[in-house]
């Protein structure tokens, strides 16, 4: 017989309660904390190495027999290839400046989610083979060898980092833990470990074009359905040009905005804006996904999916690409496109706005302009007739999506637009926005529902700041420029700040846009009543 434990004993009985040193405390694969594994046939189709069936919660992950050699060689190869990786392994002084900057650490309070210790998981392996003292002193200086538990741990924490780069902002050496995570995910893929929510879209984008693998004709029909909805709201049915050759512009945006609520309203916003401008553009069904799911997988996969966009630009003979509101698409374009697939096809030229004549010189290399740059420029030149009072029921704030903010420096254009299409705009606290923005908690392919519980803790710093402006200033809306955010922020808001709606910037643009020949607007794009529509006027 045993005595009943006291509440204090129960509270301190967590398995990760510090009995062992931090490096020896192993992660618990509890449901809600890990993503479902990818399917073997998906990996085979994509020619990924060592496809196999496995279950993250099982003891044995069925790793290939020579897994240790595969991993050691793969790590060596990457150290050779990426000088930055070697540098990141060598120069960290463990000053701890990054420790409490990660939303995963702030939400889980798990020390291994401190960027410095997340990187240390890999660095400890590096130290054994590359640091003189590591070879001699081993564990004493934090060096260790590969074993199967280490593989599990690397997997666990590589999918508890959204590659958001907030930590790198605070590191005096600029160590980018996001890049370390990207390498760890690549290493895991070498032994056949990946997650379904990333690999399934990679397969669909590779073979069909959009992330759900919807066939081109059906994809087109769904877009037409959205154009019909535009007509219901405005009386104008925008055109939906697909796969047409000889236009000036190819428009590429995340396909999530064609399928998912509330992203569809942002998509309708694009359709209406382009119609109003009579823009000379086309969509492509093959390059119908701007989001590069490959960038959550490996260098080569990211390169392959990025190439698709330029192949379509070439095939369709367009001069430049206009890109929609997406997060990581822009990181890939801004930081990696040149290395992956540059230079652009010969038919492409430095983008120039056909409406204002503005030359987007910063896009000279990639030939790709962000839609908020394009629209902000239109507003600046007085080319849009806007009635912000149509958004008067909204008090909005703006969530800086990690990639456009930190990997591209797109901070002011979305705000400039919002201030012209809404009369009520409120910023969240200074240390949670712009370069210091907190991630939605589910970027880099972690926006899957099985880890909703993890997402609610990793997204907490964002949700917490949103809740603050909701309670203090009555904020009831959060705009963003990323399709993953449009999917991940609504549940986050429902949990942390219920009552706050989420939308893209161009949904609000289209609501405020007074179009030539439009009918009297009584509804917004969601077909909800607009404010200030007088009952008498209706009669």
């Amino acid at each position, binding site marked *: 017989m045993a005595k009943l434990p006291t*509440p*204090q004993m*129960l*509270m*301190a*009985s*967590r398995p*990760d*309660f*510090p009995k062992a040193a*931090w490096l020896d*405390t192993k992660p*618990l694969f*509890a449901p*809600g*904390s890990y993503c479902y594994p990818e399917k073997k046939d998906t990996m085979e189709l994509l020619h990924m190495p060592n496809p196999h069936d496995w279950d993250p919660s099982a003891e044995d992950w069925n790793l290939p027999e020579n897994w240790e050699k595969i991993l050691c060689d793969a790590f060596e190869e990457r150290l050779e290839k990426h000088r930055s990786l070697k540098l990141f392994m060598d120069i960290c002084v463990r000053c701890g400046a990054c*420790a*409490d*900057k990660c939303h995963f650490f*702030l*939400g*889980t*309070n*798990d*020390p291994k989610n*401190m960027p410095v*210790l997340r990187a240390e998981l890999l660095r400890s392996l590096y130290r054994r083979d590359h640091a003189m003292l590591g070879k001699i002193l081993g564990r004493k200086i934090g060096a260790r060898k590969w074993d199967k538990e280490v593989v599990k741990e690397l997997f666990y924490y590589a999918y508890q980092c959204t590659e958001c780069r907030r930590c790198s902002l605070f590191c005096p050496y600029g160590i980018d833990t996001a890049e370390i995570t990207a390498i760890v995910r690549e290493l895991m893929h070498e032994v056949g470990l990946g997650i379904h929510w990333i690999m399934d879209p990679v397969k669909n984008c590779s073979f069909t074009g959009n992330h*759900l693998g*919807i066939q081109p*004709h*059906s994809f087109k*029909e*769904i877009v*037409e*359905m959205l*154009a*019909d909805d535009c007509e219901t709201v405005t009386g104008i049915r925008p055109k939906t040009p697909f796969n047409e050759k000889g236009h000036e512009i190819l428009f590429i945006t995340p396909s*999530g905005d064609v*399928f*998912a*609520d509330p992203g569809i309203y942002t998509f309708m916003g694009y359709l209406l804006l382009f119609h109003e401008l009579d823009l000379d553009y086309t969509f492509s069904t093959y390059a119908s996904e701007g989001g590069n799911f490959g960038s959550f997988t490996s260098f080569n996969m990211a390169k392959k999916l990025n190439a698709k966009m330029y192949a379509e630009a070439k095939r369709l003979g367009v001069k430049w690409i206009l890109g929609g509101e997406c997060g990581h698409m822009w990181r890939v374009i801004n930081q990696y496109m040149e290395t992956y697939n540059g230079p652009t096809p010969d038919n492409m030229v430095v983008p120039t706005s056909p409406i204002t004549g503005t030359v987007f010189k910063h896009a000279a290399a990639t030939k790709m302009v962000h839609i908020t740059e394009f629209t902000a420029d239109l507003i600046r030149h007085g080319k849009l007739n806007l009635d912000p009072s149509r958004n008067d029921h909204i008090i909005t704030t703006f969530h800086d999506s990690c990639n456009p903010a930190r990997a591209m420096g797109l901070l002011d254009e979305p705000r400039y637009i919002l201030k012209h299409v809404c009369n009520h705009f409120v910023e969240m*606290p200074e*240390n*949670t926005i712009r370069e210091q923005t907190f991630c939605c908690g589910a970027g880099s392919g972690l926006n899957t*529902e099985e880890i*909703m*519980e993890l997402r*609610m*803790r990793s997204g*907490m*710093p964002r949700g*917490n*700041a949103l*809740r*603050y402006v909701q309670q203090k200033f009555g904020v009831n809306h959060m705009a963003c420029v990323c399709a993953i955010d449009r*999917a991940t922020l609504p*549940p986050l808001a*429902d*949990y*942390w700040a219920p009552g706050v709606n989420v939308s893209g910037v161009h949904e609000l643009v289209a609501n405020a846009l007074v179009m030539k020949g439009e009918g009297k607007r009584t509804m917004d794009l969601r077909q909800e009543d607009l404010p200030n529509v007088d009952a008498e006027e209706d009669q």
Partner: protein
Amino acid sequence: MNTQQIFRDKTDKIVKLWVEAVINCYPDRSRPALSSNMDPFTNPVGGMIREAAQGLVLAISGADIQIEQIKKSIERLIKIRAVQALSPGEAIGIIYLFKPILRAEILPQMNKPSSFSEYLDIESRLDTLAMMAFDLYVRDREVLADIRIKEIRNQYAELKRWAQNLNSNAPLGTFTGCGN
């Protein structure tokens, strides 16, 4: 001395001890970050613990309070603990971490026939607060389950509408696809 007077002198200490006790439930390497930074946005959990401590001590002391105000003070802390991979008992058990503190700090002054029943009232208030915390916890877990379902539905919202249109005989406007 009545309960409120005793609490007046002890509040700061009880708040401090409870904040420490809660922070001590987290892994040792994480504790410095939770206790050193006072900014509510860059150390949100630390801020939540401190906010809850203030509200809870006020309620335990028997002061006149609005139930809603107390709930508001512990809401965020319960929300985060509801999703930190803790058992329900661990998540809300933090309320009972007050008990040893109260017995060390308050009981010695009330351990006499004239005031002992008042001390028991204090501990009973702790039970009420634990029940409130439990209600909040369950509500949060229900929201968590709901948003999972809602997200699955929203992801495929347009696809479903399109598929339903295919099956209906209603005219499909400009549609040219199969099913027409």
